Every structure is written in C-alpha cells, then in structure tokens.
C-alpha cells in the first residue's frame, strides 16, 4: 500500500521558522565586520580558530594590572602601590598570562615598559582618580531593534565607570561634581591614524547610548586614556606632576546626541548587513570587501594569503613555510 493511501487525513505540515536573536559588540563584531567582512565571517561566524587572538600581550598586561590596583583600592587599600609594588603586580600578571599560553616577544622589556607606564599613571593621576571610581569592568547590555525591526542584543564592557574624575583632575573643560564618566584605557599612544581614532569614538558613543538606555541619561563624557603616551621621558621630566603636560594622554568625547544617534543607526545597519550576509547561499557569504583594508588588519589575518584585498598575498603565499 502506498503512503498516500495509508496516511488518510494527513495534512501537509508547514515549515517552522526559529528566530535567533544574536548578541553583537562594537569591537568584536561591528568594527571587525566593517574593517573586513571576509575576516569577520571566517573567524567570528564560521568559527575558525585564529592563532593571533591570544597574542595581545601588552594591552592585556596593562589592563590586568590596573584592574588589580582598582580592586585593591576599592577593598580598602587606600595607599597606591609604589614602583616596586607595581613591578611585582606586573610580574604576577605576566606570570599568569604566560601560564595561560600567551607567548610575548621580549617580555622583560615589555614588563619594564608596562611598570613604568602604570607607575607614571598612578603618580600623575592616581590620587585624584581612584577615589572617584565607582565600578570597573562595567558591563553594558541592552536588547535593541534595527531599523528593519530585527531584534538583537548589544553588549560592551567599559574599563571604568567613575564619578567626577575630570572634575577632580581639573581637566580643561567644564565639569561638575555630579558627573558620571566612562573611562577606557588604551595601552598604546594616541593613534596617528584618524580611522582608528574614529573607531574609538564610535565605540564610546555606542557605550554612551547603552549607558543612557540603562540609566536614563548619557554619561557626562567618555574619556580615553592613552597610557602609552606616558612613555615619553622628556615630557615626564617636564611634567613635574602635571598630567596635562602630556597633550595626548587624555582624549575626551562629549555626549553629542546627534553623533551618538548616528553611531547607533550605523550599528543597527551593520547588524542588518551581517544578518543579511548570514542568509546568503554559503558560497556567496563573506566575500572579500570591495573597499581597501588597512595593512595591519591584513597582516593579522591568517587567510590573507589568498585574499585579493591583500596586496602582498601572492608573494607571502609562495614564500616557503
């Protein structure tokens, strides 16, 4: 007997559609996709393992030590560490990173540099800065909808949520004692590249919007601290305890509603673009971008050897090993 005659009263089942609501972050998703969709799709979406991901030694080292100092301070240790104590904290953090598999080049020099930068940061800003820190690794997360009605979760983490730090530091712009600020540490110098600085601004504007959605108001300002700037010994000699001598140490982004809205709209649109790309047939997904990609992005990408956007692809591919 055929199935058709056997299955009396069978109704053809409709297809069920499962809706996935994904989480997106500024750096790991949106900026990464905008820099190079091929690299993003290959590593972030398809899940290939990037060997370079574990190599961000210096930034992690600086970040971990500052986080440790914050925690110690908040748990009641009001004295900030001196140089010897900073070196010990750096050595401990280094040890932990090494054991967790990070393999830095010339780690002794990098530790020495990290210790110097952190100590200088503490020396110049610490006494005014730390009493105002409210929270470190402050998590921001919201469910949002794109312009096309697609739900997604936007998340991010800012290094420091603080009270009126700029006020306490007497930074050269209008501040009040009621200010709430978000601060983000960058372990390098202020970037020469305008596009990188734009990316930082973009990130902080998105965080400002997340903060507004979470608390009902924008932060008074977002502050980027380029700790790498403190490596300049000549400026240090001139500073005499005045942080403002380092012109590029602190970069402030004021909460400009229009610019924030533009950043968020761009974020929504990029989420839509990524989701649309996911729905393409497999062989049409994550093609090389049509726009130029900066060399640094390409050099950090393991699939550059066959990429038409990487100008050195052919030479590097045919090199032995």
């Amino acid at each position: 007997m055929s199935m058709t005659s056997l299955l009396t009263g069978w109704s053809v089942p409709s297809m069920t559609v499962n809706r996935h609501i994904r989480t997106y972050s500024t750096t790991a998703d949106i900026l990464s996709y905008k820099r190079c969709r091929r690299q993003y799709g290959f590593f972030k979406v398809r899940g290939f393992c990037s060997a370079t991901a574990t190599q961000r030694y210096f930034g992690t080292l600086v970040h971990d030590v500052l986080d440790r100092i914050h925690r110690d301070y908040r748990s009641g240790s009001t004295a900030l560490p001196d140089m010897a104590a900073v070196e010990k904290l750096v050595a401990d953090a280094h040890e932990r990173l090494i054991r967790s598999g990070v393999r830095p080049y010339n780690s002794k020099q990098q530790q020495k540099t990290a210790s110097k930068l952190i100590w200088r940061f503490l020396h110049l800003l610490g006494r005014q800065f730390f009493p105002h820190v409210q929270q470190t690794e402050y998590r921001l997360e919201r469910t949002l909808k794109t312009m096309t009605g697609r739900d997604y979760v936007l998340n991010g983490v800012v290094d420091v949520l603080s009270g009126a730090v700029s006020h306490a530091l007497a930074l050269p712009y209008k501040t009040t004692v009621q200010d709430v600020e978000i601060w983000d540490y960058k372990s390098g110098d202020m970037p020469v590249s305008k596009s990188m600085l734009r990316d930082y601004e973009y990130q902080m504007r998105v965080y400002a919007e997340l903060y507004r959605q979470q608390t009902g108001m924008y932060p008074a300002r977002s502050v980027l601290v380029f700790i790498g700037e403190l490596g300049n010994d000549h400026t240090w000699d001139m500073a005499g305890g005045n942080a403002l001598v380092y012109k590029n140490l602190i970069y402030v982004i004021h909460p400009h509603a229009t610019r924030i809205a533009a950043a968020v709209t761009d974020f929504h649109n990029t989420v839509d673009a990524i989701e649309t790309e996911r729905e393409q047939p497999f062989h049409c997904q994550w093609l090389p971008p049509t726009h130029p990609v900066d060399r640094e992005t390409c050099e950090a990408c393991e699939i550059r050897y066959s990429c038409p956007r990487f100008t050195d692809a052919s030479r590097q591919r045919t090199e032995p090993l």
Partner: protein
Amino acid sequence: MPVHMNDYVDALARAHNGIVPLNEDQRKAVEHDYTRPLWIIAGPGTGKTHTLVWLLLKRILVDDVPTHRIVLTTFTRKAAAELESRLILNRQQLIDAGLRAAEAIDVTQITVGTLHSICSHILQDQRYDPTLRIRLLEDELTQEFFVRQSRNPLLKCDDLVFWQRFGIVRPDATFSPTQADRATGATKLFNRLTENSILAADLRATADPDFVRLADAYDAYVMALHETHRCDQAHLQAHFLNFLATPAGQRWLGSKDGSGLTVLVDEYQDTNPIQEQIYFHLAAHSGDLTVVGDDDQSLYRFRGATVEALIDFDMACQHYLTQKPVQVNLRENRRSHPDIVAWVNRFIDNHPKMKDRQIRVRAPGKRPLLSASDVSGDYPAVMAIAETTNPKAAAKVVKVIQELRTHGMIRDYSQIALLSFSTRETSHAIGTFTNALRAANIPLYNPRSGVAHKDQLFRALLGALIEILDPDELPLPAKLPGSVEKYLQEVRDTYHDLVAAGAYADVKRYVDVSARAVRRAPYDPTKAYNYLVRSGGRRVTVSGLFYKLLAYDPFASGLNDAAANARLKALNLILAEYESLYDEGELRLERGADGVCAIHPWSRYNVYAVFVEGIHDKLNDPEDDDISIQPGMVNVMTIHQSKGLEFEVVFVLRPDKQPWPGDTHSMEDEFDRFVRRPTKPPYRRTRELRAAEDAIRLFFVAYSRAKRLLIISGNKIDEWSDVVGYDKHGSALDSRVALTRAGVHLL
C-alpha cells in the same frame, strides 16, 4: 511597582487572541507563590520552555524579582540562546498587549547560560584569584591531550585488571589499553572524581592498590592543571563551589537586601552531583529554586549525570533547604499525533525495568501524557520496518521518504529525521541507511557521522602538512600504534594522489620548497633549543602551515562549500587545541651529522602520537551553534542530539543498537562508597538494569520527537524488546505479530 497577577494573565490573554496560553498545570506552575521551591516535571511536548519563559516574566513583573538577581541555566548553549531569544520575544508580546511595565524589563541583566558558562562568567566578573586568566580545556579530547602532555602516571599503567575494574576495557580484553585509550580512561576517571567531590585522601585511605594508584594519578593531574594554570570543565564547577564558600562568594550570593538569588534550572534530569550542590548553594539564601525536567528523558549518565537529582528532588530540598517543594506535572502533549502519544505512554508506563519496589526509578506521582495536539488524521502514526537485513530495511526507508517528498506530503526534507543511538556511517551502525539515501540522491546532513577524518580534502591537507614536517619519513623515538602508522601512510598517499600527474602544481611547489626550507633551516648549535623560523624570524607553527596550505586549491575552493568547510574547520580546531598544549605548535629542530636539519623527532612524534592519534579513527564535524536543523536535507542525528527538537516524521533506526553496561556503570559502582549526597539511592540497581534504564530513556526521547509519523526501522526484531517495550499484559513486543497486535502498522 509590581503588576497584579490578574493583570499579567489578562495581558497574556490579550497577546494570544483572548486566550490565556497556559493549561491548568502550566498555570499552576506560573502562579506558584514561592513559599516553597518548585519542582516541574515536564513530559515531552508539554511546553516546558513555554512555561518556563512565562514563569520567569511573571517572577519579574508580578513577584518584583530584580532581573540581575535571576540565574537561569540550561544544558546546552543552543538551549540557552533559545531561552534568551524567547524571553526577548515574549516580553515584546506583553508590551504589544499593552502591559507597559514589561518595557522596564531588561532581559540582558538576567544571567542565562549553561552552568559552565555562568560559572566562568561569574568567576571572571568577581576576579576569583585561582581562576584569573585560567585556560579552559574545552572538551574531553583536549583533556586527553593534556593528560598525555602532562605525562600522567596512569599512561604507564599496563595493569589490565585496573582498567577492567573501572570498565575502561572490556572484561574479556587480553591486552592493556593503548596510550590513547589510557588517556581517555584517565580523563573519564578524573572527571568522575571531581564531579562527585571525591577526595584523593579518601581513595588512599582504603589501602586498595587500585584506588591508591588512582589517587596518585588524580593528584598528579590536579597538580599539572594548577602548574599550567589550566582547568577542565568539572574543575571549573569545583572552583565555583569553592568561590561560593569564600566571603566574596557569600557577598555575591546575598543581594543588598539579603534576599538572595532566584534560581531556575532547566533540564534538571541531567544534573551531576557537583552541579546539584551548586544549585542548592545558589538558592541557599533565598530558597527560591525552580527545577524543570523530565526523568524519562535523562540521557547523560555517561557524562556523570544522576537522574536521582530530579527524581528525589524533594529529599534534596528537605536536606538543603529544610522544606519540601511543590510538584507540578506538565502532561498535555501538544506535539504528537494521538497514536504516538499512546505509544510512548505504553512504552514507559508498562516497562518492567522502569519499576522497582525499593527505589524510585521515575519521579513520584507520574501519570501518562495526555494527547492535546492539533495533529490528527485517521492513519496509523506508528509504523515499523522490521526486515531480516538492514539493506532491505534501508530500501524501504528510502521508498517512504521518496513517496512523502514526491507526493508533497512534506514541504522540505528537513521535516524528516533519522535518529539512532549511533550515527557513525559503518555497517555496525547506520552506514547501510545513509548509503541507501545517498544512492537515491536524497540529501542528508549527518555531522556526527564520525567520518570527517576520512574526507579526501581533509586527508590531502593533513598529508601535505606531514609532507612538509617529515618529507623523509625519518625514524621516531618511540613506536606508534599500527593504526596510526597506517592512517599516516593513507594521508600521505592521498596528498600524493592529489598532486600526481601535475595536478595542483602550486600546492605541490609550496610543499616542496617548504620541505626544502626545513632541511636548510638556520640552526645555532650554541642554543639549547632551535625552532623552525620563516624569513623575518617568526617561529613557524603547525597552524601557520595549515593556513598557508589553505590558500591553495583545492583547499581554498573547499572553503566555499559547506561540507568541505566543516571538515577543514574540524582539522583547524583540533589542531589549535593540540597546539595550546604542545609548544603552541612551534616546531623544534635537530641537525644531523650531515648538517641537514629536520623537525625534532619528539616534535614529530607528538604530532603523530597525540594529534593524529586523537583523530585517526573517528572525527565528527563541528556543529553549528546557531542551527539545530539543517534546511533542505534529511537530518541524521544521534538521539542525544535530537533532545529538545521535534520533526514531522521520525525514523528510529537500528533499535537493536542500544546502550550497554560500560565504564559509566562500573565507575558508579566502584565510587559509590565515596559519594555523599542526599539524593544518593539507598541501594544501587545492577549495572544491567541501569544500562536498560539508559536505553529505555534514550528511545523514549527518540519516539517522542515525532509529530505526525514515527517509523521504527531495522533488523533483528528479537533484540528490540527493551526499546520497544511491552504490552499491558507484560508481553514483549519482540515479533512482527506482537507489534501488529500493539497497533503498529508494519511496512
């Protein structure tokens, strides 16, 4: 300002065309007042997730529980993602229905995830010192690599009796296990000890030589984890439990007003003992604990799950929280045709092996499922293909699928699933069936076929890699297992066949010049260790070579094909795990007397004996975290994989293949005396009976995935009785006549 319960229910009704989308039992669960813990037993298709999500939103809106104090766990990342999505969508439904208070709910502040991910997240958030920047061993294979890399003493144990005692080798084995099998066995033993909080000192105190040996090995393993700042999944939970006992943990547990956490646990039937402890510790301050699950669907004993956690939840509550829970049974099955519901009810309710006078084998007070699906039709919804051989059964399976598709009775192949205990494509499992489907041009998706390592592209790429590392097939410092040697030869041959007769000349050129570069590599005899470097001085890694090869055809083109991409990714991911343990994949050199360099023998040996050994006889494709069911294809799944899913048509293949008494049951017996937990049964059933329970629960899950049609297919019908069950008179359905008498239509 909390919402009144009536307003919440009204909004639910408004969001669903005026009808509250909860039946009486579901409503009882949602309206629970939390003066006592809640114990929800939810049979298949009874709307478990649906109830859980509306319950959670009610907790926030009506009970005024702050979202950041809620912890919601489930068993897989996929399930956690689905829960989070459903929360977001259901919240929106409430807002659309005019319940303005729902706008204030920030779903992202709820801690949702698997228990592992939540432990990891909280430990990181709280900067728990012992786990700061710790490196997690992601899965059992990586753990086995670690056991090998750390040279655990059990690797040297060639005492066959020891391994037999714990079920790692069969009782009739005559040879001691291989190094790889010892690493697998050691991993299972260590995880079992950690999950049961068994102390090495307790093992040692028995003075039993096997336990003393195991205690020493476990201590060595734990020490190696500590020294290398690594952590396995079981130890991550142990760390979390330790954290909860610290002052910081206690501070985190109690909210500012001391009300504690609201804890909801999905899939509680697959909880292991350390997880059970964690959940009760999390809820200790508040007593606000909800568990949801179905003991009949407990599948993960082999990973340490103890179904008693759910079955005896009332006793555990009494022990930890000094109060009994309120039990709610969800019984209305809205998924399946009434015949299928009747089939699963008969199967589980009549099964003599699911009854025991001394202990609970099922949750107390369980009653049959009620059929409430809108799937109907006057046709026999349970069928069987019971043939004398599997090829005959496979031919009939193909015919049925073709008919369903050709006559438009299904819209897409993905509405059909083939489920089996094992989906390996061998004649011992379901190879006959998958071959028959392929021969008939029926597209199928089988990520757990265990054949990724046989894929030609995969082999060719691995062969090319090995050709660079070891072009001259130099001697090794130790003997490899014969099967690994054979596989290595096969992958080399696959690569040579690929580039034979001038094909793919580019990749051949690259491999040849790279092999030459190894021979001529710079070497400084004054250095203790020399590593292979490429121009510019950067050290070469195995992964680096992998990515270089990936730039050449046919591998580069393979990345554009979903199946080939999956296979290459499988190689990439396991390689990355291997490298994280072995010199980050960097390659040591040695120089021969003739001045020619080669990769150091131990570097080559490790690649072969650990990495290749780990994949040479079975490798699954990596699975997509987002997609549970592949569209356009018949989905072939292990029954374990199918948990939580449903399909219009389900074929249950090879019911003669069932779980058997093995290492899990032996370890349960051997470690029983060391286990101290409130839900430990007063006596342990035999290994055979526990294995039968596993088989029965497994097939209960398989049958209950079907919405419209369930077809049991295979041969050896006389071996089906445990998994097709018995009629109400206690007679086994082990013949075609008996099946027909039970209402099964034979095809």
